[in-house]
């Protein structure tokens, strides 16, 4: 039988506020346990939550960025469940009246195709603390620093049909929240988390199959792997006559498997009700429009502008606009370099990206700044050096040996463009290799490369390749 995969994603984005959603405790990552958990976060008797304006602004910013309806009135509700890292016995969340309503996002698939994924809603809620299960003499340790950190939970429609589509969607949301500066997107620190609802159904069937919810997907790679594993698992169950159970499954990256966490039927009974400690949030058009006016150029707009302004391919424009920092870097290079934007694109997404990746450095800390790279590209454009030598210069700049001009000077890498000098070298090479010259003249065209290689070897790659080609052709045509 042919199966169709159906995936919906829930993304939890930690909002980049200074203080918590309902208290004045700090949200800074990595503090000593429980030093950023105040009486409100601990759920002590008699405390009251007071909503953080910035968290509301950030949620609204996301809403206007995806063209969603921002609720003029939204309500906080209590989601009731018991777990030690949730001191109040309920999580303050939003149920019936979320702050952001229906919207959509266009995702980019392979081969230049795109697809619109529906976004059901996005709501504000508080994060829970952390449980540490190791090393406490059979007890569990609780750190409540994270408790009360503002989260925006972004819920998609079950519109994705493959793990690749789910990853494309997650990456797009990730880029967007970073562009609009509401979340730092750090997946390793848990600032951006994905849960995937996965089910399968026979191709052509309308009704959805029973779904499993996958958790603990803290990288895009794990998201893809876990979904593929889960799809296989469900198909195996159904094809061998079994039934898929609705449950939460945890992805274990070390073993590359998913395993059942808890049966959701009972846990699902959260008995939501409006939180009497909080009043409805009412937002007027003025407030929403003010926030709309602060939106930066969004990834899709930027990509289209890159394609038209810099004559880049869709693929190049997509790579360069993947993050705002990368896009800013590229534009700074183009602005400063007297060079073709396409060549700048190749360098930024090629040599530079590879070096950043190799040394695990963020683009904002790149030892080769946009100005330095621009200087290098200018020297390629004015033929001071060839593209090949430029790679050597880049590596030296990466190691902190100065700007392009300094490196070219100290290493003596200036391109030889003096045609007299090159002519002499060409002459020598042809005379010193009479056998090859003979073979070339009798039709072995491939040997041309051999001569170019010899000249380049003599000049350590510094001869202008175009001139070498021309002069060699001319010289070899003579007897």
């Amino acid at each position, binding site marked *: 039988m042919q199966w169709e995969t159906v995936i919906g994603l829930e993304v939890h984005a930690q909002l980049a*506020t*200074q*203080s918590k959603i309902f*208290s*004045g*405790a*700090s949200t800074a990552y990595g503090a*000593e*346990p*429980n*030093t*950023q*958990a*105040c*009486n409100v976060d*601990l759920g*002590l008797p008699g405390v009251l939550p*007071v*909503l*953080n*304006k*910035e*968290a*509301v602004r950030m949620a609204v910013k996301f809403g206007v960025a995806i063209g969603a309806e921002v609720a003029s009135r939204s*309500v906080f509700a209590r989601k*009731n469940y*018991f*777990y*030690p890292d949730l001191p109040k*016995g309920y999580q303050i969340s939003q149920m019936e*009246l979320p702050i952001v309503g229906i919207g959509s996002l266009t995702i980019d698939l392979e081969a230049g195709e795109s697809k619109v994924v529906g976004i059901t809603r996005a709501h504000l809620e508080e994060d829970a603390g952390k*449980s*540490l*299960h190791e090393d*406490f003499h*059979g*007890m*569990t*340790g*609780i*750190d*409540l620093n994270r408790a009360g950190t503002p989260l925006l939970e972004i819920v998609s429609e079950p519109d994705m049909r493959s793990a690749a589509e789910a990853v494309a969607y997650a990456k797009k949301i990730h880029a967007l929240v970073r562009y609009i500066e509401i979340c730092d997107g750090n997946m390793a620190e848990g600032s951006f988390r994905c849960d995937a609802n996965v089910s399968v159904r026979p191709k052509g069937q309308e009704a959805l199959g029973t779904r499993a919810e996958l958790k603990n997907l803290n990288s895009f790679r794990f998201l893809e792997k876990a979904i593929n594993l889960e799809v296989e698992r469900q198909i195996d169950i159904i094809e061998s006559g079994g039934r898929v159970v609705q449950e939460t499954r*945890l992805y274990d990256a070390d073993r590359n498997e998913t395993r059942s*966490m*808890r049966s959701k039927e*009972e846990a699902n*009974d959260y*008995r939501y009700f*409006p939180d*009497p400690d*909080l*009043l*409805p*949030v*009412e937002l007027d058009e003025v407030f929403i429009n003010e926030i709309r006016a602060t939106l930066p150029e969004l990834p899709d707009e930027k990509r289209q502008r890159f394609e038209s302004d810099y004559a880049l391919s869709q693929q190049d424009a997509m790579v360069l606009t993947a993050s705002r920092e990368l896009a800013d870097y590229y534009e700074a290079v183009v602005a400063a370099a007297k060079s073709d934007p396409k060549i700048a694109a190749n360098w930024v997404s090629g040599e530079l990206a590879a070096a950043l990746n190799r040394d695990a450095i963020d683009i904002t800390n790149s030892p080769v700044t946009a100005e330095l790279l621009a200087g290098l590209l200018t020297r390629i454009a004015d033929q001071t050096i060839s593209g090949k030598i430029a790679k050597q210069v880049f590596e030296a700049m990466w190691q902190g040996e100065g700007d392009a001009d300094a490196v070219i000077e100290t290493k003596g890498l200036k391109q030889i463009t003096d045609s007299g000098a090159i002519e002499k070298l060409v002459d020598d090479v042809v005379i010193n290799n009479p056998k090859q010259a003979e073979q070339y003249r009798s039709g072995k065209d491939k040997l041309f490369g051999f001569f170019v290689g010899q000249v380049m070897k003599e000049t350590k790659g510094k001869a202008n390749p175009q001139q070498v080609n021309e002069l060699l052709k001319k010289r070899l045509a003579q007897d």
Partner: protein
Amino acid sequence: MSLDHADVKKIAHLARVDLADEQMESIAKDLSNILNLVEQMSTVDTAGVEPMAHPLHMVQRLRSDEVTETDARELFQSIAPQTDAGLYLVPKVIE
């Protein structure tokens, strides 16, 4: 609508309330009475009435995003049954 013992048991479990068997009868009756009252209210035509989220007709005040709390871990942990390395210790939770 009336609740049977199984319903009461389930609700008690969800709320982590420990009920003795002999309490079941009377609690089931009390809860059923409340539900009956709600059922009675449900017969009222409420079309066009906006559901009330809070009894006060007021709007949530928003606070500015500033860190105003300082570390009071020592104070809070002085009343905790057990702590270690700055963590609150609780009976082992296994998923």
